[in-house]
């Protein structure tokens, strides 16, 4: 009886003092409460509700995933134990003024904070010694509990020893104390934004300046959702905003390899497209717009905008000295400098016709054509994407090609239009914050990191293993990493090339992780330090989106011996002799109050601001902080109690945002931050900066480079369409169970979302695979096994492995059982050095080995038996 085992295990192996354990298990409906024969569910719920009425209080609790939603989470605390959660009910709900409702992840936070697998004590690996001990046991060794003193002494002495022995640049990642004492190597490279990181500011504008606000989006006639799935990736309000656009009459067209859950609710049409083939499709759409446009009979192109606000569209608007056929139009139409069709071998050959694109992207040419004409003819169109199309190897040009279409169809700077990134906190709702937080008022400066060496994410594990990394054009540089500090960001889990990463972790002399669960990094470390979650600290103040500000309180005291990251850094700094013990930072609560006190909120006129909160002397005393009384919109204690302040919006209010509206009207008076001040469809800076990184020389126009591990590479013979050893594409989608890699250990989420591998029935049948089978997925990096969901929702030839599962490598089977995306992904540095998560080729076969228990039944990672 697995449920009984798990509940029993959870209860007996967890928690706190015995007294609070009993209370907590009672609150969770556990054995203690039931021992007396109290009926389950119903009566326990009654008991909880009665408690709710009489004791306990509702405390705003942080929801701190990197999902972008960051909705309001409130915890019910009874005697220091959280019995349940609720979401936003601080004001009545309406589409114009919606509650900030959380998703299934946020609703599971208390399972995460109070899970039996919380790290409770500092620990070290049983077979570790200075120098590493038996490094091959990293990831499978036993754990030994140690005291904080011993742990911090070990860390400090290892930092000193390694830095002394190998010199600066031997520590990978670190905190302020490490920077001050030795310096550390950092990694770099766009992960979330793909190639937009370099493209956006050089070609047009920062991504935070793309798209319109949610009320304006109700005016759209047509919303193109290209590789964006807000329902999964930005849980909470964004999908609700899009629903209002739909109710207001907008048509939705989704372009995606997968019929997403956003599409199921919003889409009027779904255009399936192979991952990584968006550039050809966009170029072919440009071809269609240009060739079909007739200003008199069939106006498709916004020529005013092209002429006034862009450069590089054709040979009339190129910078001096540039070859005349190095422009967007000639490239798309496949013309040479004289305007004739370019011959084979010419840099602009072939014409980027829909037929040319169709062979690559899998969209019928008739559809490419009709889609381009439709967005050309419709006004206004919101032409939106969420960067997944740019998280593809070699795809530097996709952003520029995307902007070119947006420019041509008149989506930039118009009401009901909008272009570019719709993602994270601004999904479906762009615009400057209506509430701006003040500064935290920290008194200590961050020490400078003396090590300037930076390794690209795609190369980091190779750099550890081979001692070489790329730093621009020219020969690789030397590096000798002997310590890895997993301080935040779950790097070992979320960096490409994880199979190599594990090898790298077994090579260095010392590995350290601070975390609150035995995540991937912790598992492969020598010393693990337990940190507090956001529920165990003050200081969480944030803008979840432009219209609101949250202030979460400390919900409970730190569990067991968990400590703040800041305290750990402080202790390390003292031991390393780089911190002055008399100079301490102000408290988290003081920082929070400073930010809140300094917060300003835009008034109804949309222009002037006022302080957000009023503060009295009594308030300051009650909070136990320093400050000055002030007047503002709401009393500070009201804000603290509610945990949220949200600016009410309504149709016709003054909070509209239309990105680049002024630029459209007058590009001279309101230039962009690009080199020319205009939209650069020819962008020299992009070409120069990317080429200088040393991996790929690119053109200044959006020229297509077939991606490594894209669609073309599934063939060993492209001409004759003969498939190679890895004939299927694999991409990694944001997944409901997790926010990146967070929440993967929460049992009820593992039950609700089972990390299935997705395949099309045609591909499955060809391999004798049925829905529900366990399949083995193999890439150039290794193999994983997963239950397969065979579904028509995904294109033939394409597979999907949800992003973020914590690797669970099984030595005897030689496979990763968890389906970690990065275990199968390779680090391939191309163009701007972004991570091309959505480019990988795999083979899939039925697994004939031992079966796989459902994820929710896997044992929790509890490293120490309870003392």
């Amino acid at each position, binding site marked *: *009886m697995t*449920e*009984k085992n*798990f509940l029993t295990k959870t209860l007996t192996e967890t928690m706190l003092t015995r007294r609070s354990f009993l209370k907590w298990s009672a*609150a969770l*409906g*556990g*054995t203690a409460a*039931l021992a007396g024969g109290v*009926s*389950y*569910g*119903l009566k*326990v*719920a*009654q008991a*909880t*509700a*009665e408690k709710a*009425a009489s004791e306990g209080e509702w405390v705003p609790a942080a929801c701190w995933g990197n999902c972008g939603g960051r909705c309001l989470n409130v915890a019910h605390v009874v005697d220091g134990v959280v019995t*349940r959660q*609720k*979401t936003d009910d601080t004001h009545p*709900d309406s589409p114009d003024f919606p509650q900030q*409702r959380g*998703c*299934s992840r946020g*609703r599971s936070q*208390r399972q995460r904070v109070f899970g039996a697998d919380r790290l409770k004590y500092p620990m070290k690996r049983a077979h570790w010694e200075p120098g590493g001990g038996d490094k091959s046991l990293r990831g499978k060794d036993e754990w030994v509990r140690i005291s904080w003193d011993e742990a911090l002494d070990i860390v400090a002495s290892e930092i000193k020893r390694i830095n002394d022995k190998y010199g600066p640049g031997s520590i990978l990642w670190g905190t302020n104390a490490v920077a001050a004492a030795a310096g550390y190597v950092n990694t770099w490279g766009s992960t979330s934004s793909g190639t937009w990181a370099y493209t956006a500011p050089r070609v047009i504008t920062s991504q935070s300046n793309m798209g319109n606000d949610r009320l304006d989006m109700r005016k759209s006639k047509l919303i193109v959702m290209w590789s964006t799935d807000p329902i*999964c990736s930005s*849980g909470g309000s964004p*999908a*609700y905003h899009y*629903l209002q656009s739909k109710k207001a009459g907008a048509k939705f067209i989704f372009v995606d390899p997968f*019929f997403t*859950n*956003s599409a*199921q*609710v919003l889409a009027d049409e779904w255009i*399936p497209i192979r991952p990584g083939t968006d550039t050809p499709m966009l170029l072919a759409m440009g071809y269609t717009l240009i060739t079909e446009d007739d200003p008199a009979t069939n106006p498709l192109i916004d020529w005013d905008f092209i002429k006034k606000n862009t450069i590089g569209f054709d040979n009339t608007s190129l910078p001096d000295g540039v070859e005349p056929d190095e422009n967007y139009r000639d490239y798309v139409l496949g013309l040479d400098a004289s305007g004739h069709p370019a011959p084979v071998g010419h840099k602009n050959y072939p014409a980027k016709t829909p037929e040319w694109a169709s062979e690559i992207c899998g969209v*019928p040419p*008739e559809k490419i054509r009709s889609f381009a004409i439709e967005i050309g003819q419709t006004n206004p169109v919101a032409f939106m994407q969420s960067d997944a199309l740019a998280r593809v190897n070699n795809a530097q040009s996709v952003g520029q090609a995307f902007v070119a279409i947006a420019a041509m169809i008149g989506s930039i700077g118009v009401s009901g239009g909008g272009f570019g990134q719709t993602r994270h906190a601004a999904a479906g709702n762009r615009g400057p914050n209506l509430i701006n937080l003040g500064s935290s008022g920290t008194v200590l400066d961050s020490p400078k990191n003396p090590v300037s060496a930076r390794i690209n994410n795609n190369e980091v594990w190779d750099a550890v293993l081979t001692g070489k990394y790329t730093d621009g054009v020219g020969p690789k540089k030397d590096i000798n990493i002997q310590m890895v500090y997993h301080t935040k960001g779950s790097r070992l889990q979320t960096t490409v090339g994880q199979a190599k990463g594990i090898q790298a972790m077994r090579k260095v002399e010392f590995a350290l992780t601070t975390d609150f669960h035995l995540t991937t990094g912790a598992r492969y470390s020598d010393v693990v330090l337990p940190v507090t979650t956001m529920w165990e600290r003050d200081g969480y103040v944030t803008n979840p989106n432009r219209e609101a500000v949250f202030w979460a309180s400390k919900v409970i005291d730190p569990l067991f011996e968990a400590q703040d990251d800041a305290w750990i850094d402080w202790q390390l700094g003292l031991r390393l002799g780089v911190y002055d013990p008399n100079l301490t930072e102000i408290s988290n609560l003081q920082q929070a109050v400073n930010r809140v006190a300094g917060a300003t909120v835009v008034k109804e006129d949309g222009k002037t601001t006022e302080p957000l909160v009023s503060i009295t002397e009594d308030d300051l005393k009650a909070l136990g902080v320093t400050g000055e009384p002030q007047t503002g919109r709401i009393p500070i204690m009201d804000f603290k109690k509610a945990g949220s302040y949200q600016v009410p919006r309504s149709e016709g209010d003054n909070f509209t945002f239309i990105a680049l509206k002024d630029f459209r009207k007058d590009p001279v008076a309101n230039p962009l931050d690009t080199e020319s001040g205009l939209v650069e469809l020819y962008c020299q800076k992009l070409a120069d900066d990317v080429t200088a990184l040393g991996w790929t020389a690119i053109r200044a126009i959006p020229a297509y480079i077939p991606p490594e591990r894209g669609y073309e590479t599934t063939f060993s013979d492209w001409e004759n369409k003969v498939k190679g050893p890895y004939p299927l594409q694999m991409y990694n989608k944001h997944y*409901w169970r997790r926010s990146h890699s967070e929440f993967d250990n929460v049992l*009820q989420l593992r*039950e*609700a*979302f*089972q990390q*299935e591998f997705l395949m099309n*029935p*045609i591909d499955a049948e060809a391999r004798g695979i049925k*829905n529900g089978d366990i399949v083995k997925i193999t890439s150039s990096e290794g193999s994983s096994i997963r239950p*397969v*969901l065979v579904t*028509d*929702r995904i*294109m*033939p030839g394409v597979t999907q492995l949800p992003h973020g599962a914590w690797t669970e490598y099984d030595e005897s089977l030689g496979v990763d059982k968890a389906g970690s995306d990065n275990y199968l992904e390779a680090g391939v540095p191309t163009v701007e050095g972004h991570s091309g998560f959505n480019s990988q080729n795999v083979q899939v076969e039925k697994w004939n080995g031992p079966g796989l228990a459902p994820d*929710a*039944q896997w044992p929790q990672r509890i490293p120490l038996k309870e003392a």
Partner: protein
Amino acid sequence: MAKQLGFYFDSSACTGCKACAIACKDRSSLPVGTNWRHITDYGGGGWVPDPNHPDLLIANNIYVYSLSTSCMHCEDPACVNVCPTTAMYKRDDGIVLVDASKCIGCRYCEWACPYGAPQFSEEKGVMTKCDFCQDLQAQGLDPACVDACPMRALEFGELDELRAKYGDVQAVDPLPDPNITHPSFVMTPHKNSQPVGSGNGKILTVSGKV
């Protein structure tokens, strides 16, 4: 006093995100294995050669919709009818509850309920089920699932009023025939909804079941 409380569900707005089901689990501290609210993704369609390009496969009417259902607090509840101890009972306001102090854990109701509402607790040996958050309602609050939905796809109230407001669709595939137990449930179907019992689509899970 209500006559018959019921749920309204808008399948055209439901994304299958499970926030409602998780909110329910959190509110009642349900363990893995016990789920009082079920989310069902149902879909169909296929891939066919493009008529103009036979080598190219195109999507042919691919659709997906999601259903969020809990206990239906049926007007003619099978669980109440078959329960040997009267542990399963229906209140004046229409809510169907289990009195665990009478339950013998024979699981007969589990066999009889078309909606999978009664859930056996291994730990305690009795049945558990959605209780319409009747204690929250007593405080004037909404059921946890209703307040949780980020798409506002769930409502509850007097069944007659819900019917007057939203019509009388009680089921789509793969929900069971509503004539078996007359669920106190009104829904707005998704535009691609399939008729009850048609079997046109599939439940989109690795087990093929919810």
